């Protein structure tokens, strides 16, 4: 994983976790007022999207293509992915640079939060009445002091239903 990219957030990281055996650390992002966790290993960088080239006929969740320092990355809206309405008016596009299966993605979120540790003992079962679509994207759910946190499954996140 790329720790440098996360240096700002890593202040909350304590030594226990850096050598942490079974604990997962997770990067928190916010969309629509909800908090979601991403496995830090996938996160490469955080940046502001300036110009997006839309992809006609592409999956609706793909906002477009972005030039990230000379590399073309696919920008995905987490809001659309979670079937939330687009932010009105569009907030400045904050994106998480991620790599999945050799493809570069930019996951557009409303806000970024801290990197925290998840104690495996706090993991709870997926609520059975969770929306099916959401359930597919959820890797695990954790019970934290400040609330319940869903970890997103990065693989599913970037696996699009292809429609033509």
């Amino acid at each position: 994983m790329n720790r440098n990219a996360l240096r700002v957030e890593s202040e909350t990281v304590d030594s226990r976790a850096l050598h942490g055996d079974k604990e997962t650390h997770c990067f928190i992002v916010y969309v629509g007022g909800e908090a979601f966790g991403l496995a830090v290993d996938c996160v490469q960088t955080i940046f502001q999207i300036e110009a997006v080239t839309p992809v006609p006929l592409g999956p609706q969740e793909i906002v477009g293509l972005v030039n990230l320092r000379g590399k073309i990355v696919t920008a995905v809206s987490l809001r659309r992915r979670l079937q939330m309405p687009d932010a009105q008016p569009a907030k400045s596009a904050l994106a998480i640079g991620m790599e999945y299966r050799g493809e570069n993605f930019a996951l557009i979120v409303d806000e970024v939060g801290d990197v925290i540790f998840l104690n495996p003992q706090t993991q709870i079962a997926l609520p059975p009445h969770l929306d099916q679509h959401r359930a597919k994207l959820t890797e695990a759910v954790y019970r934290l002091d400040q609330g319940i946190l869903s970890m997103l499954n990065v693989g599913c996140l970037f696996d699009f239903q292809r429609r033509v």
Partner: protein
Amino acid sequence: MDELLNDFLAETSEHIDAAGEQLVLFERDPSNGGAIGKIFRLFHTIKGTCGFLGLTRLEQLTHVTESLIGRLRDGAPATPETVSLILTTVDRVKFILAWLANTASEPEGDDNALIEALQANLNSSASPPAEATEEVPAPTAPAASAETAPLAETATGSGSVEIAASPMRSTATRTASNRAETIRVTVGALERIMILVSELVLTRNQLLEITRHHEDATVKAPLQRLSSLTTDLQDAVMRARMQPLGRLFASLPRLVRELAVDLKKKLYLVTEGADTELDRQLVELIRDPLTHLLRNCADHGIESPDKRLALGKPEEGTIKVNATHEAGYITIDVSDDGRGLDLERIRYKAQAKGLVNAAEAKNLSDDEIGRFIFAPGFSTSPSVTSISGRGIGMDIVRDNIESIGGSISVTTTAGKGTRFSLKIPLTLAIAPALILEVRGHHFALPQHSVIEAVRIDSDSGHSLERVQGSLVLRLRDEVLPVADLEQVLDLEAKGVDNGALVIVMRVSSRVFGIIVDAVTDVQEIVVKPLSASLAHLEVFSGHTILGDGSVVLILDPTGIAGRIGFERASDYTVGRTVETYVPAEENTRFILFRAGPGALKALPLSLVARIECVPASEIRQSDGNFVMQHHQQIMPLVPLIPADQALSEDDNPVLVLGIGGESMGLLIEEIVDVVEARLDVQIAGVSSSVIGTAEIRGAVVEILDATHFMRIGRPNAYSRGFANQFWILLVDDKPFFRDMLAPLLIAAGYRVTTAGSGEDALALFDRGAHFDAVVTDTDMPNMSGYALAHQLHSDSRRASLPVIALAAHAAPSVVQAAAESGMCGAVGKFDRPALLEMLSRILESHHLNKHDLESSIIGAAA
């Protein structure tokens, strides 16, 4: 591997290819001392180095060959046998070299037979005394002279013939000082440099764009310098990747020689422009298309020697391959002086295949007619040969050329010859493209497919018209289909519509236009492929970063044509409805015969196992039926002749039909002909013995129903064997494989429906279609073949439906995955016998377990 051995292999492999070519050149013109000298030196060098490296097998072989070539060099006649023998040796040396490259040691076995043959040839060529060959260490002098003027040598040798006159080819004899000027660089290193330069070009463009807005005198001068240096660097790297076409041409004389032998024709190959350079990647990519074109010229173009003489042409047919360089493109012309394309036949065939209607066909120009030979599955050759086959070919050549951004065209003059022109871009990595603007969106369109841009306004005189709602553009005397890119791409309007511009493009043989707002720029773009999550979008072929740093998508003309619906006419899977698949272009060979009064009768030749002529004495009547004795067995005969007609004494033709391992005969009057025609039943038959009436070659014939006679002659075998008409669903996302496999299955007696995806396949079942087995590609977007099998079996009605996996290769991992998904097995896509074998085995066992199925099949067939 040993450094020395490595060097030896690299050096020798390069020159051994040239040896075959030089030899053919020499055979044609024995006065060409330069050619034989080169081969001699090559073998001499190999022999010497082998001794040094301890490669005994190669040394022995090259030693005797060298002696033989030495004889030739000294004036012994080059008989075809000698040349063939040396060519065989060249192949053997290549084989040993390839083995060495892989294992660093010589292969097991010996070349005694070959060496003996060479020795025998050497002894029989009674020419100069043996010591001539012993003066082996001498050739330094001729070597040196060859080196100083390698080009002049070939020029004087054969006039305009300039096969592989590239200076690179003579390096075999270079001295040490010369060799120091070249170093070997791996292709990977060159590729890496090319990528870096591409990135540098992009960055340079970005910088230029920035300074265009922020005028800064201090930066301007160095930036200009950087810019021109980058351009020079790009140019230099491109050049480093360039290879002379001579490398490719080198293999052609040998090919043509072999074709001449196989076809028993006299062929003469002329190559020009061997020093024309092309990106090395492209040189390899055009090898197959070029080879195919040559085969075509030799096989179909050039007439047989007798015919040529009768026509007043020289006995020897000339095939000319000419490469020239113009404006960023290489043009390679392959022409012959043969009979030319049979345009009438092509016109007829295009019509028969439904590519054009009769009215259109009449109005098409010769060039347009000629273009049909690039349509899939189009072949007018009535005969099948091993040289160029038939039915496949030119369409694949065209696909190959177009996939590298090139184009192919054909011009022909009846009786004078045919010329194929290939237009190939110099490189793939960087392509000029138009930057189009549509409603505020920008797209790049590679220039190679663009013919022209037409402004649509009252001044230009061009206007768009609608034909029943569809847009067309009247351009000069043509009417082109046109589509608005805004609608094609379903764009959200971001800007205002500022007037229409039609970009006219050509995709294969179709010309069409797209409407855009403006062309804002023409830029060299570095094409990057789309990422996996977008790769399914057929309208885009990639993306790139423009000078201003913005990302644009690159339009794919072929994909756009597909999306608009200008599909290739032969794409018969478009509809994807549950219908019995009818191969649109399959010709059937029919046997035409006379039997009884009325029209001629016809049966597909494939149903006839053989034809026998039986004397009346062998035909008996038993139990009211005709039978004949046949291989110690009684074979039932069904007479198709009038009952009162007497049998001829010793010559009664019998068509033997095979069914389910048994045979039966049809007693007929006379066999008229065997023809190949498309089965087009125009009037359905009334009697059960006749399928219908059709026109074959202008004559009215009755197509007989073989099953009717089989039921009479062999009722048991019929129900057991022939009637097994199973219905197969073939699922593959690639039209290529659907097109390839569907006819194969049909030919094997199955009924076939195709689907382009797992979803489509499920939809067919949901609509109530019944299939006896499913053959599915494993690797498809969205739903893999494995997932499809799971889904199918999850429905209790289809729990036992046999599903067969198709994969590129039936690798153990695939077989295992298939088994885990409940499939019956896995086969490779190109392994036809395995597929048919598996289908018949599975369906048979499936069928035996289900008596109701059997009765339903017999019922259905009856």
